[in-house]
Structures are given as structure tokens and as C-alpha cells.
């Protein structure tokens, strides 16, 4: 019975995850065929060649965590406001409004940001108040702004849920014991909302690590991610084995960071469990 229920997921995993991953792994030890693509071989050259793309790795590994952190920092007050301050009647409406940008095409939204961050956008307004020579588009800042904008709707709901579940009497108990509102926030609210922050951060981090559209549009080819390197290697220079090696490296890095992160969050294993009850 259990086996029957698990079968669809098993088939799904086998065909869409394990087999492709195995193919990529095999490719990564091969050679580029003269006309592009894959030629069978067994060599570590592709891996030894990884430093050639170090710029993409460095960009991804700094901007993805930073973008995640920034999104979490901005999402938290929004979620807090929704869960604690807004009357229950308006909560759903406001959550929907936060999700609204998600309904329009991603490309359209990025084009809007290109306009806003470009020379005729925000920099020109800043110039009006005397702040000149600000460049935003095609800088890491543009990518970070895009990341926060794009992923806020994914970060807010999990944090909202954990704050909504938070027993408000705990906040009163904390105040009763002499904690100022700020202490109460850091000692009670934040730790108990951590599971939500962890979930949201994981989601955003994974998506950012693999993203290539955001850096392509807002980074304009100057700030590029591993994803952009992959597009280039697979579709432009058609060096599939090298692309495969880059992919394997990306997957490994993600596995390690996610594992470390989960370990960190779960290290307060029963705290987390407690926060969920």
C-alpha cells in the first residue's frame, strides 16, 4: 500500500532527478566533441578547469546569500506587521497584495527595474537632490534589489505563518518579567519565528543560487551567476562536459551549504520542535 502510494514520487525522482544527475555526472568526466557537445572520455580536466569560471562562482556565492539575508531582513517586519498588527479581517487581502507582483510576467518586471535603475531612473532623481554619479543598473546592487523584489513574496508567507502561530501571551509574559519590547523581540519573537525564517531563506537561497534571468537582466552580463555560465557553456560554446562539471560543482556547493544551514537550525532540534507546537 505504502509502496503503491510512493511509486509516482519514486518514478518522478528516478526520471527527473536521478537519471539526469547521473547523465550530468558522466558528462562531466568527458570531452567536448570537436563540433560541440559530448564525447566519451574519462578525464578530470573539466574540474581542473573550474577556476576559469571563478568569477561566476564568487558572484553567486556572495550575492545569493546576501540577497537571501536582505530579503529575510525586509520580509520579517512585513510578516510581523501582518501577523501581529493588522486586524485578521485585512490579513488575507494584504498577503494577496504582497503576492500580486508574482502574477505579472517576470520579464516584464525586470524590464521595469531596468528602467528604474537605469540612468534615467533613480540615479537621475538622486541627481536632482545633488547626489550625482550613482550607477545602479549592471552592478551587484541592481542584482540585490532585484533579488529582494523578486523573492519577497516567497519569504513573507513562511515567516508570517510562524509569527501568526506565536502565542501572544508569551509576549505578555515576557513584558511581565521586565523585558522591554526590544528584548522581547530578540528573546521571544525572533527565536520562535526562526523555523519560518529558515524555510523562507532556504527557498529563496536555492532559487537565487540557480538563477540566471535576474543577473542577465539586472546584471547586464557584468554581474553574472553560475547559471549564466551554464547557459553560455551549454548553449553558446557548446562545451557540455565543462558545463556538466560546473553543474556538479554547483549542486555540491548547494548540498553542503543547505546541509550546514539545516544542521545549524536543527541544532536547536527540540527548540524548533517546541516552536512548532
Amino acid at each position: 500500500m505504502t509502496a503503491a502510494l510512493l511509486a509516482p514520487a519514486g518514478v518522478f525522482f528516478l526520471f527527473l532527478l536521478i537519471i539526469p544527475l547521473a547523465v550530468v555526472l558522466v558528462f562531466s568526466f568527458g570531452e567536448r566533441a570537436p563540433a560541440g557537445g559530448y564525447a566519451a572520455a574519462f578525464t578530470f580536466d573539466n574540474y581542473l578547469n573550474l577556476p576559469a569560471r571563478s568569477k561566476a562562482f564568487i558572484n553567486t556565492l556572495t550575492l545569493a546569500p546576501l540577497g537571501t539575508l536582505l530579503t529575510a531582513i525586509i520580509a520579517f517586519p512585513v510578516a510581523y506587521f501582518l501577523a501581529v498588527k493588522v486586524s485578521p479581517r485585512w490579513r488575507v487581502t494584504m498577503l494577496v497584495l504582497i503576492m500580486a507582483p508574482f502574477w505579472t510576467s517576470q520579464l516584464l518586471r525586470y524590464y521595469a527595474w531596468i528602467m528604474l535603475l537605469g540612468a534615467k531612473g533613480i540615479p537621475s532623481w538622486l541627481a536632482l537632490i545633488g547626489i550625482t554619479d550613482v550607477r545602479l543598473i549592471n552592478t551587484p546592487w541592481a542584482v540585490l534589489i532585484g533579488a529582494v523584489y523578486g523573492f519577497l513574496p516567497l519569504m513573507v508567507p513562511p515567516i508570517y505563518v510562524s509569527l501568526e502561530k506565536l502565542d501572544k501571551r508569551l509576549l505578555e509574559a515576557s513584558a511581565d518579567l521586565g523585558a522591554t519590547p526590544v528584548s522581547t523581540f530578540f528573546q521571544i519573537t525572533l527565536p520562535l519565528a526562526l523555523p519560518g525564517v529558515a524555510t523562507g531563506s532556504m527557498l529563496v537561497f536555492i532559487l537565487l543560487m540557480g538563477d540566471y534571468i535576474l543577473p542577465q537582466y539586472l546584471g547586464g552580463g557584468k554581474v553574472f551567476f553560475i547559471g549564466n555560465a551554464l547557459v553560455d557553456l551549454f548553449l553558446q560554446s557548446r562545451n557540455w562536459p565543462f558545463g556538466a562539471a560546473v553543474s556538479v560543482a554547483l549542486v555540491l556547493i548547494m548540498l553542503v551549504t543547505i546541509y550546514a544551514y539545516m544542521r545549524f537550525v536543527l541544532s536547536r532540534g527540540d527548540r524548533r520542535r517546541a516552536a512548532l507546537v
Partner: protein
Amino acid sequence: MKQNVIEFRNVSKLFGNVAAVIDNNLAVEAGEFLSILGPSGCGKTTSLRMMAGFEQPTSGEVYIRGENVTGVPAFRRPVNMVFQHYALFPHLSVQDNVSYGLRQRRPRPATADVAKAVDEALSMVRLDGYGSRRTYELSGGQQQRVALARALINRPAVLLLDEPLAALDRKLRRDMQVELQNLQRNVGITFLLVTHDQEEALSMSDRVCVMREGRLVQVGTPRELYDKPVNRYVAEFVGKSNFFKAGEAGKVTSVRPELIDVAKSKKALPDGLVTSTEAKVLNRIFLGEQTEYRVASESLGEFAVVTPRKAEREAGAFDIGDRIAVGWRAEAARLLPDE
């Protein structure tokens, strides 16, 4: 004169157009165990929350140790509360829960001092060695004691307890009542307990304050409330009583069931009774140390009589349908406002 640790001066609280507390004047004396007793929705919790600082009065003032604290937020008030469902912090261990209040103080007390105080507080509530436990691993009674330790460690001017025993089963509740009383005597901290259980209020407190629909009806020792209720409401709420029509309009005669004498016949009744009549036994409830009869007489109607076991042994028990004689002394009957 004893100092008042908490005082309500003409305190009222409105929620929209619901008046939860109406023009209360209440003075809690230092070191006493005071209970606020009243039915559900009469404003007990609201009163407590105004003392703790979670609510501010709509009008009137709150004084703590002679200082006007009206408008002062909860975290700046020297009182602590034990919440009905304890509100223990689930992500903190027992000792971190208990030390929470001390750790909020500035300057921060030394770690060793905090640890020592936590050990003492846990020992006080008989939870020695439970410090590193998780709160959700504890039983209801143990959680209750952690909540007590967490509040008492701060040596508050008053400990506020909002139906602290309501979530416990009957047996445990009895034990905790005794424990709370002992604790209060040992630590010498003023306790203010809210309950709708009259037995609890009467057995534990030095003084009881009876509330009704937002108003204080009577404040006094359990004995005063029982023997000298100011009106029918208090007589009914504190103990049991029979009420008979009185000659005066707007008044009733209240007679406690255990103050009524019973005998097989009028002749067997003791001397000096102001009222005596024949009655028929309608029902009998065996209560162990005493027996409660429901009786009916032509002149007085139906009412309850309670006889101690001892009297029953001497004179024998009555059966349903028996015709008996009942009566009471002048001091047993109290003329009370019918409100």
C-alpha cells in the same frame, strides 16, 4: 497601619460599550493573600491585567506601593503574574524560563548569582534538579510550579495569579492549594488570586473580594463573607443558603442549611428557636461527613437542611417522605437586601 501594595482608585474599564470593571476601589495589603471571586465574565481577569499593566483603566488610577502607576507599561511594574495556561517559553529550558526575569535587569546580575537564585526558586517549588529540562516535557502540575518559580524569583510587590489551578485535575488542585498557601507564608509575598471557585477562595485567602458584573460587592475575611454577607448575591455565592420571603419589601431572610435544627417532632426540637415548623423530607443526599436534606413545609416552601453525621448517629437518619420538625435560632436568620 499596613501599607497598601496595590490600590485601585475609582478604576473603570470599558471595552467599546462593554463595561468590564466599574468604579472599583480596592486596596491590597502588604503580605496578605487576597482572592477576587466572581462568576465568569465579571471582570476578574481585566482587573488583574490592569494591575499587571497589560490594560490601562478607562478612568481612575492604579497605585503600586503608594506610587501612581497608571499608564506605566507592564515591563516597568514591580508585579509578576502567573498566567492561566502558564505561558512558559517553549524554546527555553526550565532554568532559562525561571531566570528570565533576573536576566532582564540592568545592570545584569552575575551569572553565578542568577544560577543560585534559580536553584533556590526551583527548590522552593520542589523542582530541584529539573533546571535543564524542557518545559513541554513536564506535567501540568510541574509546569504550574515552573510558572510560580519564574514569577517569585523576582520577589514582586504582588504576585498576580489568574485562575492558576483551573487547568489541573481535582486531586492535584487540592494539593496545589495547600502548596500555594504554604509558599505564600514562606516567601511573605503578597498574593492576589483570581478564581471563580468559592471553595478555593475561602480556603486559601486571608481576605476575599466578591465581584459581580464589574463591581466589587464585598471585601472581607472568608468568615465575614460567610457569616455577614452584605446581600443575597454574596450569601448565595459564598457557601449555600436558603432564602425566605421577609416582611420588608426588597429584603429576604437568609438561613444557612447547617444552622437549621431538625428533629423527629416539634417537641424534640431544642428550646429558643424563633421559627419552627413541620416539614416533609423530599430528598436526601449523603455527603459523607454530613447529609443534605431537601424538605418542604407549608409555610416556608422548599429548602435545604444539612445535618452533621454526629447528630445523625444520635437521632438517626430521616427517610424520604418522613414528616419532621425544623427550626432555627434568631441569630441564624439574616435579613438581607434581595439583590
